[in-house]
């Protein structure tokens, strides 16, 4: 099959309407003709019961009616049969049981008239019936194709579309089985449908699936054994359906490519944003350090002891900041690469929380930590160092957003399935729309776009918690501050 120019629209021509065919002579036509004549003869006999007079005109009229009815009901051939039989029967009707006496010219004229009526009506009726059949069939085909095209172009995955496609073709084409095998960008898809209980091995059509001269695969339609071969219309319908499937598959292929391209573009955009953020965050402390050191090395500059110390303290702070940032970036890279390996052992949340607070206390400035841990908390399966990191990040975050002299409240309680940790600060809180965004990498709060955090701590915390089958989310405290709530499952989950 050649690929259709213009890509085959839905209403592609299926039935060639210029093909006028003569309705074949069938047993049905013979039967109807015979039946009509018998009825005609019977009516003629009935009209004779009442009187001895033979109403020739009546009999002729009755036979005319029977020929007409035969032609109307059974088409041309039924009419012709009825006409011939009527011509033969007519003389008997007038003979009163004796041998028929042919009334030469009159009977001949009657026979010709009968035949003429039969042919004219038969042709008209036959054509009308034919047209009706064709109309009904092409409507059925159009409906099938329209249905196919909606199905095929629904944007569903090609596998499912093809499954449905082969299924739909079975019934209207009287198939025992229908099989499609295609290859989309090297990805093989196959679909097969068959009707149970039908013996395979009948007439088979093999139709190539082609788009823009690129072969995609083949469709194989098989009728049950012993059935008639596909006729022209059926072959055309099959080809039209296949063409639509080809267009749909091509579209699916292009869609998939477009989606990939879009994902690529988004990833690149994200990467670019990350890159510029990381570059900025890495360069800033480096700039401070280099400025401080070159100033101290500058033999022309005279620093007093206090100035020297200021510079050195700045260098120290910036080094620490840089160190934390590099650590966070490495962690995030590890998480993204799926290389975050949790070494889970029975871990006491309270012990880790206490250790983190003990270690962090000197770094919290004037912020007070209030630690309330429920007694007898169960151990949880966790990597203690990763849990340590989560709590460290949460505490650092809370401290960063705490007002001077504020209190950070850390509570640990047990729920039905988890140990729940709550780290609440007295900061400005997080707008309800941003409560999920804070877990995105490189996100910084609206109030503090230049805050010293890297914007990574919370996203690392969430990644670790999630890897442990736990959850972390933001709540608002009574005083309007932020509470980070963390559920760590008591029983081993996931991974």
């Amino acid at each position, binding site marked *: 099959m050649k690929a259709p120019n213009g890509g085959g629209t839905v209403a592609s021509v299926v039935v060639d309407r210029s093909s006028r065919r003569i309705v074949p002579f069938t047993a049905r036509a013979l039967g109807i003709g015979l039946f009509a004549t018998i009825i005609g003869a019977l009516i003629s006999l009935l009209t004779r019961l009442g009187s001895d007079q033979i109403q020739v005109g009546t009999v002729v009229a009755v036979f005319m009616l029977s020929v007409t009815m035969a032609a109307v009901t059974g088409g041309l051939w039924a009419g012709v049969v009825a006409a011939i039989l009527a011509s033969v029967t007519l003389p008997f009707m007038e003979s009163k049981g004796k041998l028929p006496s042919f009334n030469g010219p009159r009977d001949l004229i009657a026979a010709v008239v009968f035949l003429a009526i039969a042919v004219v009506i038969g042709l008209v009726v036959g054509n009308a019936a034919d047209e009706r059949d064709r109309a009904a069939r092409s409507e059925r085909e159009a409906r099938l194709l329209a249905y196919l095209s909606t199905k095929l172009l629904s944007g569903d995955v090609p596998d499912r579309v093809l499954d449905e496609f082969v299924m739909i073709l079975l019934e209207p084409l009287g198939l025992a089985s229908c099989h499609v095998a295609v290859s989309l960008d090297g990805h093989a898809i196959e679909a097969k449908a068959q009707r149970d209980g039908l013996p395979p091995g009948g007439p088979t059509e093999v139709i190539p699936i082609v788009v823009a001269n690129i072969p995609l695969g083949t469709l194989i339609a098989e009728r049950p054994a012993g059935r008639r071969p596909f006729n022209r219309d059926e072959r055309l319908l099959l080809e039209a359906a296949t063409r639509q499937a080809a267009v749909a598959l091509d579209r699916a292929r292009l869609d998939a490519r477009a989606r990939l391209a879009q994902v690529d573009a988004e990833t690149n955009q994200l990467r670019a944003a990350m890159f510029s953020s990381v570059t900025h965050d890495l360069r800033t402390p480096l700039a401070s350090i280099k400025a401080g050191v070159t100033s101290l090395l500058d033999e022309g500059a005279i620093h007093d002891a206090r100035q020297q110390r200021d510079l050195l303290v700045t260098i120290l702070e910036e080094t620490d900041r840089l160190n934390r940032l590099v650590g966070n970036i*490495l962690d995030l890279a590890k998480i993204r690469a799926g290389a975050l390996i949790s070494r889970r052992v029975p871990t006491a949340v309270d*012990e880790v*929380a*206490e*250790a983190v607070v003990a270690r962090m206390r000197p770094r919290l400035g004037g912020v007070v930590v209030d630690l309330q841990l429920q007694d007898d908390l169960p*151990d949880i399966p966790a990597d203690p*160092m990763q849990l340590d990191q989560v709590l460290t990040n949460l505490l650092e975050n809370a401290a960063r957003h705490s007002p001077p002299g504020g209190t950070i409240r850390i509570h640990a309680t047990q729920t039905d399935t988890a140990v729940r940790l709550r780290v609440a600060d007295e900061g400005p809180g997080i707008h309800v729309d941003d409560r999920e965004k804070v877990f995105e990498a490189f996100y910084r709060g609206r109030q503090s776009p230049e805050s010293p955090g890297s914007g990574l701590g919370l996203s690392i915390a969430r990644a670790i918690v999630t890897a442990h089958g736990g959850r972390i989310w933001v709540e608002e405290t009574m005083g309007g501050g932020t509470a980070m709530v963390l559920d760590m499952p008591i029983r081993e989950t996931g991974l």
Partner: protein
Amino acid sequence: MKVLVVDDEPQIRRALRTSLEAHGYEVATVGTGDEGVVSAAEAQPDLVLLDLGLPDMDGTEVIRRIRGFSDVPVIVLSVREQMTDKVAALDAGADDYVTKPFGMEELLARARAAIRRAGPDEPPQPTLRYGDLEIDLARRLVTSGGEPVHLTPTEYALLESLATNPGKLLTHQWLLRRVWGQGYGTETTYLRTYVRTLRKKLGDDASAPALIVTEPGVGYRWIGEST
């Protein structure tokens, strides 16, 4: 006092040499594990600072080889990402670790503590004092503010193990073997329960500790200041 620095980064070697010499230490530096083992045998240092990320040899292997002939204190220098290596190094016989990048102040404090612990055995002090707390090692008695603190034999053994290794990071495995016996090593939940009870009896707040510090996932460290 001789310090051997084993690190493949020349900048770190130079920084350590400068700072340590400024504090009166005699410093030798090498860049590979092999040289480290040889120097540890030949130069007989009083302390080894060992980088865990050596190009030629696993740091744990260096410690194991040094331990084959010497009890010299070893402080491991590692980056944060080498947490499991660090625990392995401690279990292999390292005395302590310092995470890179470190402050010299912290490193020097650890170095002094390690050298002191390894120093010539002073006559064992019969009694350890930390403010109100007194541990009478000879009579195995513990008092706090003059009041006796009642400890079970296991609790006492744990306290003694911690207090007689001041400043040293004691891994879970080391403590379990020392207190419960050689067959133990992974029963960290067990150990944790005892540490918690001990802290409670001694009145030490884990979130603001004066005696026992927790290193999550690694072990415990006694930080009590002798008085």
